[in-house]
């Protein structure tokens, strides 16, 4: 029997948004923490750390997110760990977000005049207090608009987790479509719900950017 695409189905899609939001939050929090560590490691006066972070960023920015998801999805199985799809999806998205955030934040830190580093050193601070107390608080101001902009990319990219079987908004859309056979209406609603999540964030990012008058933020657009 073919179901109608009615209020109940739309409600199901709206409910599924919470899983998209949850996965985005996990990826953003985890990716932000790892990204912060990598950013500090890259700034540190230790060459191998710099190369390591650069290689990491190149690797994750130079390969499709879908491949990263597959690698972790099938990779956990190799070790004999039967993990649920959410674990594989979160791992891949955290590592992916960390690479892009590190790259965005590098630009923000480079925007801080070298005199700030020299002044901090002249005050007798070691590397970590230099970075943590002097440079990062100034860089955060510039970093907020492009970071919010990247959050939009992240929310959209959680849709790929549906491919490894994690039930979020896109997967819920496929499930409803398989029951109702009204793909145009179903995916139009799914797209509208993503828009409702992402557009306010985009506006916020633009507004913050204008207020801070930081000029053009580094463009990190992932279709």
């Amino acid at each position, binding site marked *: 029997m073919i179901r109608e695409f009615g209020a109940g189905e739309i409600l199901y899609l709206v409910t599924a948004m919470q899983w998209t939001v949850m996965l985005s939050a996990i990826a953003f929090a985890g990716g932000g923490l790892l990204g912060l560590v990598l950013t500090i490691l890259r700034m540190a006066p230790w060459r191998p750390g710099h190369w390591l972070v650069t290689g990491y960023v190149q*690797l994750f*920015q*130079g*390969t*499709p*997110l*879908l*491949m*990263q998801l*597959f*690698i972790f999805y*099938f*990779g956990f*199985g*190799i*070790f*004999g760990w039967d993990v649920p799809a959410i674990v594989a999806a979160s791992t891949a998205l955290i590592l992916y977000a960390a690479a892009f955030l590190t790259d965005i934040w590098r630009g923000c830190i480079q925007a801080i005049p070298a005199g700030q580093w020299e002044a901090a050193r002249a005050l007798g601070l070691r590397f970590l207090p230099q970075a943590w107390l002097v440079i990062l608080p100034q860089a955060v101001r510039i970093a907020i608009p492009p970071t919010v902009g990247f959050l*939009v990319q992240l929310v*959209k*990219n959680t*849709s*790929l987790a*549906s*491919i490894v079987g994690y039930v979020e908004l*896109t997967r819920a*859309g*496929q499930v409803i*479509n398989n029951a109702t056979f*009204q*793909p*145009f209406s179903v*995916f*139009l609603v*799914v*797209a509208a719900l*993503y*828009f409702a999540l*992402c*557009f306010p964030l*985009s506006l916020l990012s633009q507004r913050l950017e204008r207020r801070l008058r930081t000029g*053009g933020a580094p*463009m*990190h*657009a*992932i*279709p």
Partner: protein
Amino acid sequence: MAYQFQFGSVFAGFDQLLWGAWLTVVLSAVGIVLGLCVGIAGGWGRAMGPRWLRWTIAAYVEVIRNTPFLVQLFLIFFGLPGLGIKMSAGTAALLTLTINTGAYCTEIVRAGIEAVPRGQVEAGRALGLSRFHVFRFLMLFPALRTVYPALASQFTLMMLATSVVSQISAEELTFAANFMQSRTFRSFEIYAVVTLMYLALALAFRGFFRGVHWLLFERGR
């Protein structure tokens, strides 16, 4: 860890993967050219068009940039046939890529045009250049030069995003990998090799765009 890695079956079918990689390059190249055309037309509309056109283009850009590529793909490939518009998976993939890349290019070209000093445009008008020539020589060309790095990185990211079109069974590298995976069940090995192939493609794209930059902007200077 009791798992035995077996790359033999991957390399036995390596020519399939190479063919897939070639299709990815072709799909990306056509998508880039068409997307850039849409972007330039959109940038023209945003800069020179009447108010209703500027608003329509702005809405197009925002709608595309705030919805996932995968959902756009499903809407076009699964949704449009319901309205009587049928197309093959390859056509749907290319159409979605063009619409998607076009929106990002429009935004990038618009940013470049906005960065062109007003005085330069006014000087062109004062010299009696036509609107078309003012746009072409005093707005578009300087804008493209300014935003070239942003466009190049957008195109490389687009090439990586084409892996998603395997989900509507359009043929490219990921599709070839999925096909091989369903025959050999060597999932991890296949995707590890294909990931490295994408990395090589991304580096090649980056090198290519650097070369184009040198040809267009640096040579003989």
